[in-house]
């Protein structure tokens, strides 16, 4: 565990360019969102709220804006949702390449390599993602929410909202839901590592390998995942809080804010690299035990850059 974490922190420090590549998956969709928000936000400068908004928050500006410009808001929100989807797909795309670069090291330029490797892995990653979403629907939706629904049915209409069964339902929903989400996601991560290493030719085999690798190590993996989640959330909260607190009142201030937030996102991206490096370290240790499983697979799913 300690070695794995040390590896993660070392990777955070060493692979700043990789973090920069991951950071692109935020910046590009954010650019799309920025364009979509253009026509909507442009009205603010010719509105009575210009001064108050430059000073800070204005409750009435937000409410009257969303009430009187509902159609424009809907349009902008649709594009923002699209940007979020694009960003998520971009993360899937880049993560494959990032993993291969982390595994193999190799020459620069990092961006070119990540894109090449990501392209090679993207199709199979999408298959793995479909499997992930199905697993998520089953474990979180079916087992988490489904069992909670069943508990509610057993409790019946005559049970008080604070009765034992409703308490169990709530606890179940939170713990089983979160546990299911973490475990399913970890298996997806390990499957992507198996694909990136070339240990599995397709998503199905990669998932099987991930299942084997996760077996017996769930607690340790969960602990590590939780650790990196806390690190990332803490970083996110810190930079967001300071960003809101900065509340710039001038062009220079705004530039400083943008710079500060992007530095924050870069550090968060580095933490993500740290997480992947930690997982790779553990996965590496597990590979020795998996000779029999590996024998069923042949080679990687796509061309690898030299």
């Amino acid at each position, binding site marked *: 565990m300690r070695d794995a974490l040390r590896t993660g922190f070392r990777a955070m420090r060493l692979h700043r360019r990789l973090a920069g590549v991951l950071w692109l998956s935020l910046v590009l969709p954010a650019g799309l969102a920025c364009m979509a928000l253009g026509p909507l936000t442009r009205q603010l400068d010719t509105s009575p709220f210009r001064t108050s908004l430059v000073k800070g928050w204005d*409750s009435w500006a937000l409410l009257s804006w969303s009430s*009187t410009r509902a159609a424009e808001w809907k349009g902008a929100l649709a594009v923002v949702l699209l940007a979020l989807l694009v960003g998520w797909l971009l*993360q899937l795309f880049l993560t494959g390449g990032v993993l291969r670069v982390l595994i193999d090291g190799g020459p620069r330029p990092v961006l070119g390599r990540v894109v090449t490797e990501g392209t090679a892995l993207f199709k199979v990653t999408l298959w793995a993602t479909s499997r992930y979403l199905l697993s998520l629907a089953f474990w979180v939706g079916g087992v988490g929410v489904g069992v909670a629904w069943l508990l509610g049915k057993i409790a019946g209409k005559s049970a008080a*909202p604070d009765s034992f069964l409703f308490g169990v339902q709530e606890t179940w929903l939170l713990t089983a839901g979160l546990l299911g989400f973490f475990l399913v996601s970890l298996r997806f991560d390990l499957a992507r590592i198996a694909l990136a290493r070339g240990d599995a030719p397709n998503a199905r085999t990669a998932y099987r390998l991930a299942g084997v690798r996760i077996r017996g190590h769930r607690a340790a993996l969960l602990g590590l995942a939780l650790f990196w989640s806390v690190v990332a959330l803490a970083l996110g909260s810190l930079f967001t809080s300071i960003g809101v607190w900065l509340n710039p009142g001038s062009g220079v201030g705004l530039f400083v804010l943008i710079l500060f937030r992007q530095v924050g996102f870069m550090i968060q991206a580095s933490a993500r690299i740290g997480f992947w490096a930690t997982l790779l370290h553990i996965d590496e240790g597990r590979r020795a035990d998996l000779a029999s499983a590996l024998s069923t697979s042949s080679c990687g799913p796509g061309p690898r850059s030299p």
Partner: protein
Amino acid sequence: MMRLNAGTSARHGAGAQLGMRAAFFLLLFPGGLAVALEAPRKIVDYDIQVALEPKDRLFTGHETLRWTNPSDVPVSTLKFHLYWNAFRNSASTFFRESGGRLRKDRADEKEGWGFIDVTSMSWKGADLKKGARFESPDDGNADDRTVLSVPLPRPVAPGETIALEIAWKAKAPKIFARAGYVRDFFLAGQWYPKIAVLEPRGQRRRAEPGWNAHQYHAFSEFYADWGDTRVAITVPEAFVVASAGEKVSETRKGGKKTLVFVQEQIHDFAWSADPRYVIRESLFDPSRDVPASEVERASKVLGLSREELLRGFHPVKLRFYMQPGHESQWRRYEDAQKWALAWLGLWAFPYPYAQVSVIDPPEDGMGAAGMEYQTLYTAGTDKWLGRWPFSGFREPEGVVIHEFAHGYWYGLLASNEFEESWMDEGITTFAETVMMDRRYRYSFALPFGLGVTDEHQNRAQALGPDLDPIRRSAWAFSSERSYFKNSYARPATVLQQIRRLAGEEAFWRAFRAYALRWRFDYPTSEDFFDAFRPLAIPGFEALVAGAFSGTSSIDFRIVTATSERQNLGAGYDDAGRLALPPDEKRKGKKDKTDKRGPFETVIVVGRDGDLVLPVEIALTFENGQVARTRWDGREKWIRLRTVYASRLARAEVDPAGTIVLDRDPFNNVKVLRAKGLSATAKVRTYAVHLVENLLSLAWSLP
């Protein structure tokens, strides 16, 4: 027992006593309006015994009703409300109007029906039940059983008091709207045969005396006469009873207990029972719980001394009947309750009763949440609202403040909620927004110090076109949405509009005068308007006609704004010489635009909508000078022209945001030259960071 203001005395009977305050009002309203009352005219007393059988949800009751004919004519028929018959079947007017759903709750059409049946009714031994028949004065629905008309063997003379003996059986409906049961929780509101209001000549500006009896509707149920009520409630011993009034005795026998509650000078009585209630008690102590800052503010605005303001305040017992799992939230209720007692006491008049009971309904009985009754009301919360990050949602405080404020605007000023729902809901919502925003700043507090105020939420709801005026019978609105908008948010916003047009001092003095004048009485919309008419508020009559009685709207906007160098010297002069425009003369020079004036500025301000209100227009010039002018807003547009040494930077209509009814504040400004940071850039930057935050959240998970 009810507390009365110091120096006054309780009075029984129909006559009114003219005190110092009344004399003051006669001076204020020399037109000779009715005088302010120090206590209500007692019309009806109830002495009720009721037994609850929780298993069958049955209430078996008997009441002795003493009623005085307040009119100057003999009365030969009595009218009663039997409101639980609204839940009798799907043919009732309530059910037809609501479709069996209210707010977010739906009726249980298998087991949820309820009813109330009068089993006997007599006067001096004469059976009154025989000739009784149901009426539907509002909609002619022959299947509705909520208004009972009872002919008498002989007319009741003016001022005569009669005593009726009434027995009844009622089954509680399953809660989806206001009252009823869920599991072992019972809320008894509108639960007993209740006599309707016989309005004498002059009451609510009535020309001739007559009954004001309405059916139970989807959105209205309140209008009743004042009197004293004594209720003996028998329930299984395990049940905790929360009731209006003060408990005067408790006896136990055979696994049951009987609790007797008494409350003088009220017009509505509700109670609740639940074996699971967790009781928390507190005391409103004016010396501690009326904030000094609010006293100071009120003193300054109302022009009254601290002593005058605090006169009549007294300790009030507070009881909170909490559901298990919500116990920790009672402090939130308590804080809001104490603040409401303080605020309403200062800006209206001190709460006259000795206690308040706050019911916390269960989460599966939220149809009973947020209901007002006198000296008792239901609040409403969810266990999640007691936990981070939801604790910033001030829903529990908002409900407490709103429902307690009802105790003034439907309770102590007994308005007719059926016919003028805004006088209850609208004034209450207005008072709620002021109280909420002053105490909590935001009703929805978001992370990082952001949030949304209660007033702004209501203003946002009030934007947009209307099919209905505010003054309309509660059942006559075009839709549920229109009822809610025109009974809550829109009147609250119109009152904010009046407040801004009148100014703080004038508005609050008139507001307080209205409250004091109509305390213990039956005000109408016109009485409310009359309290403000002496102030000669600009645009007030337009608001009365356009917003209260009409569907008028208003949207000011800057249509055009130009500011160019005055071009007086160009063209041929009298000698026939041609002169070039000043800017042409400067062609080819380094500084092509001549910054020297004078500049001719022309702006056109328009008014969309048919509500006419005065407004201020501000012109800000590049040299920082601001010119202001007022426009009465009578025409649809106005052109302003000025010649000034500096060019116009910004033209703005309603720069102070006085016109809160303005439908689109975004078109109130034209900016020709802007300095400093762009709001667009700033907001867009934060919005983009939000998108990045959401995306980076994926990095926070495995």
